[in-house]
């Protein structure tokens, strides 16, 4: 596990090509038998008759990176995983586009299933990121995780 604090933020949507590159980068790690990938996609929710067109994400980036670094440490201590990556969008992400990419790799599937769920739940609960849901008429409301 790397000790340096990585930048989780990607400007705008996370592309399928970025995900493919990340998967391909693991083919040299031949102890890996299972990958689990979570992707969050912006939903075109209808709220009071108006459709969400995009989410604009802002964050306390330095703290967000620190907390994700701490989450990684906890997960590496708890589960026998090989790799773990977290990316989150900052700025505008349109409905249908991907705004979070969390990726865990290990020898066996039960490890990755358990570890990835814990990672995603911790990100939602602990990382200072804020989503502003923009409607088609340019009005907005602030998203809240449930």
């Amino acid at each position, binding site marked *: 596990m790397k000790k340096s604090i990585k930048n989780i933020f990607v400007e705008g949507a996370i592309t399928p090509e970025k995900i493919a590159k990340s998967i391909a980068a693991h083919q040299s790690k031949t102890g890996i038998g299972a990958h689990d990938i979570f992707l*969050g996609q912006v939903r075109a929710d209808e709220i009071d008759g108006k459709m969400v067109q995009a989410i604009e*994400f*802002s*964050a*306390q980036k*330095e*703290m*967000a990176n*620190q*907390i994700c670094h701490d989450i990684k440490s906890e997960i590496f201590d708890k589960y026998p995983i090989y790799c773990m990556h977290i990316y*989150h969008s900052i700025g505008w992400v349109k409905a249908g586009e991907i*705004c*979070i990419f969390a990726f865990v790799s290990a020898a066996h599937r039960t490890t990755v299933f358990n570890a990835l769920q814990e990672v*995603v739940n911790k*990100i*939602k*609960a*602990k*990382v*200072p*990121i*804020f*989503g*502003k849901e923009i409607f088609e008429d340019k009005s907005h409301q*602030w*998203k*809240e*995780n449930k």
Partner: protein
Amino acid sequence: MDVTLTYYGKLVEVVGKSQELIDVQAITLRELVLWLENEYPDLKKLSLKIAQNNAIGELEDKITSKNIDIFPPFSGG
């Protein structure tokens, strides 16, 4: 001590600014929250989180940093 408060997300709209400088004596985060709720009554409806040094603090914590982050509920992911 001069402390810079930084507001995030919807708080920027509620408070009407993204940063402000306040002069505080050795106070706890609880006292800061009371000051905020007095200054901006609309904040009472929100469950604020207060961070210093990139970590969420407890209400009992003393303010030790010159930079304090005031957060609304998180909504990443």
